């Protein structure tokens, strides 16, 4: 079963917004709900590039999209792979799958269907800046980015 007409319209709207704010991001495998991904490159202020993948939820727009950093392999300041950290509260990480770091951006309880992918990616962009801050200072990422209140 494919996307509903409302979901197709929403996906079109999401890509329209992303083309304005994150023009390197493109939709892939969009035919089958649950398989669609949006992938693109983000560049930090220091000029480092990160390949970011957003999984479009099959029940778009009702669930939090999974967002992963595909490359480069991310390590903490001490040389440990972020994937090996698993779920990490101070680093804002979810349990990884397929060796990709998953960023903890919204909890399900804070999610709202009006939140756009562009806003999600804005958080990921901030996470990347904070990650580089961690590499430099050794502070955990939640030194730079606070946790949502319960």
């Amino acid at each position, binding site marked *: 079963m494919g996307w509903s007409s409302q979901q197709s319209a929403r996906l079109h709207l999401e890509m329209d917004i992303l083309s304005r704010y994150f023009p390197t991001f493109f939709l892939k495998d969009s035919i089958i709900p649950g398989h669609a991904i949006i992938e693109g490159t983000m560049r930090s202020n220091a000029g480092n590039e990160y390949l970011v993948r957003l999984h479009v939820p099959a029940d778009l727009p009702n669930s939090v999209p999974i967002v992963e950093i595909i490359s480069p392999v991310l390590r903490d300041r001490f040389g440990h792979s972020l994937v090996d950290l698993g779920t990490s*509260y101070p680093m*804002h990480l979810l349990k990884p799958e397929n060796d990709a770091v998953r960023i903890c951006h919204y909890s399900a309880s804070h999610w709202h269907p009006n939140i756009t992918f562009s*806003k999600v990616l804005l958080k990921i962009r901030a*996470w990347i*800046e904070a990650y580089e*801050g961690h590499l430099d200072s050794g502070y955990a990422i939640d030194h*730079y980015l606070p946790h949502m209140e319960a």
Partner: protein
Amino acid sequence: MEEKDSKSVLDHLTQITQGKSTTKKLVFDPRTQELVLVDAKSPQLSPDAVTADDPTRDGFFAC
């Protein structure tokens, strides 16, 4: 005056995280893909620039 060096951006994020008030606001400039600090009272860099402060102040991540 805008600032986009990593230290200034990170210092700003830290201040927000610690609940301190700031005289700057952080915006994302889609033309350059940079996070840029601008004076809180000045116009944004471009019509397309969006604030990156609000989601931070709201509380950023939950896990």
